[in-house]
């Protein structure tokens, strides 16, 4: 169980769902260990958050456990989308723990947002990678099938074709050096899906990930971006993906912390709206 995620499912405002898919990882595998590792490295975090004056265990978070993955990504995403749709139908926010970034496709389909916001080193705008249309390098392109717009924060690499796609009006790329000054501007009725690919962080901070890319974001920049997006109150689905077990816990620790930051910030907005 994610530490503090002790709410009953019926009363939950947030539901953690582990999605340990690990089939298309192109370099270092191990994302299948991500969900359990994120839960493990969140154990030392205090329940109390001084900034928002709240206890995590009071925020109505439930842990559904993992949806065991198998090697047919299309079938798996269909089933996972169903599990996340059930969370939505219960009026809760799904918090998915990857697994490779491909699992975000299920989350975005379940939420059907207007805007897809992603912290990521990679554009992930490929149509296919190694002939695989459901590769983890195609996530943003799939997200744009549901969302009208994609914002990629911290992106610093992609193919020539991906950068050409990124130049179109429905994609905004904020390079790492500009993320600090970036602030979200959504229309009043727009819904948002927020995805955190841990490789958006500089690999010095989060080496436990499949495809490391230098010159990345600092943990504080990621935290501020997650808080700023959550503060809009528009986020209806969230995930942390691409954490693997090939470090001493840095990537998992950051992933778990960002999930908590999201929940604290989002819950504070929900309370102020009441």
């Amino acid at each position: 169980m994610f530490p503090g995620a002790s709410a009953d499912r019926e009363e939950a405002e947030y539901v953690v769902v582990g999605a340990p898919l690990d089939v298309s990882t192109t370099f270092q595998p191990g994302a299948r260990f991500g969900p359990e590792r994120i839960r493990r490295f969140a154990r030392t975090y205090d329940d109390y958050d001084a900034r928002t004056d709240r206890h995590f265990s009071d925020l109505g978070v439930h842990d559904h456990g993992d949806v065991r993955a198998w090697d047919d990504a299309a079938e798996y995403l269909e089933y996972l989308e169903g599990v996340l749709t059930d969370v939505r139908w219960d009026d809760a926010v799904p918090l998915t723990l990857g697994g490779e970034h491909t699992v975000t496709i299920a989350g975005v389909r379940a939420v059907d947002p207007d805007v897809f916001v992603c912290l990521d080193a990679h554009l992930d705008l490929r149509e296919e990678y190694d002939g695989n249309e459901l590769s983890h390098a195609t996530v943003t392109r799939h997200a744009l099938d549901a969302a009208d717009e994609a914002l990629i924060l911290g992106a610093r690499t992609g193919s020539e074709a991906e950068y050409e796609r990124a130049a179109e009006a429905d994609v905004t790329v904020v390079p790492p050096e500009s993320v600090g000054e970036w602030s979200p501007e959504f229309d009043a009725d727009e819904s948002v899906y927020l995805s955190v690919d841990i490789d958006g962080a500089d690999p010095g901070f989060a080496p436990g990930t499949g495809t490391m890319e230098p010159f990345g974001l600092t943990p504080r920049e990621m935290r501020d971006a997650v808080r700023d997006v959550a503060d809009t109150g528009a986020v209806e689905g969230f995930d942390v993906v691409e954490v693997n077990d090939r470090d001493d816990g840095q990537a998992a620790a950051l992933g778990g912390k960002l999930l908590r930051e999201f929940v604290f910030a989002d819950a504070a907005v929900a309370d102020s709206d009441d």
Partner: protein
Amino acid sequence: MAKEQKEVRDLQEGNYVMIDDAACEINAYSTAKPGKHGSAKARIEAEGVFDGKKRSLSQPVDAKIWVPIINRKQGQVVSVESDDVAQVMDLETYDTITIKTPGDVSLSPDDEIEYLEMEEQRKILE
């Protein structure tokens, strides 16, 4: 109520199933693979036949589940009482019944219609 028992694995899209005591038609059916341990699970997404409400359930594929028996019948409109209520004669039994008309269907006397019936619940097919 007329119903029969099946295993979850025998269901597919388009079938009827009882969820939360309501007759539903299955819109989506997906299964999770079981791995070496545990049993395969299916998730069913369905819509209430008579109330239009969306429902879902997740069950092991070998779980038993009730499937309602819904009759498809033919009738003839006798009179239209209002925008959403009509008198219809069952063309098999010649009984006259009062039935709610869906919002986007306009009926006139003598129109032949098809409708679903389960006990006292009825729905005109468009």
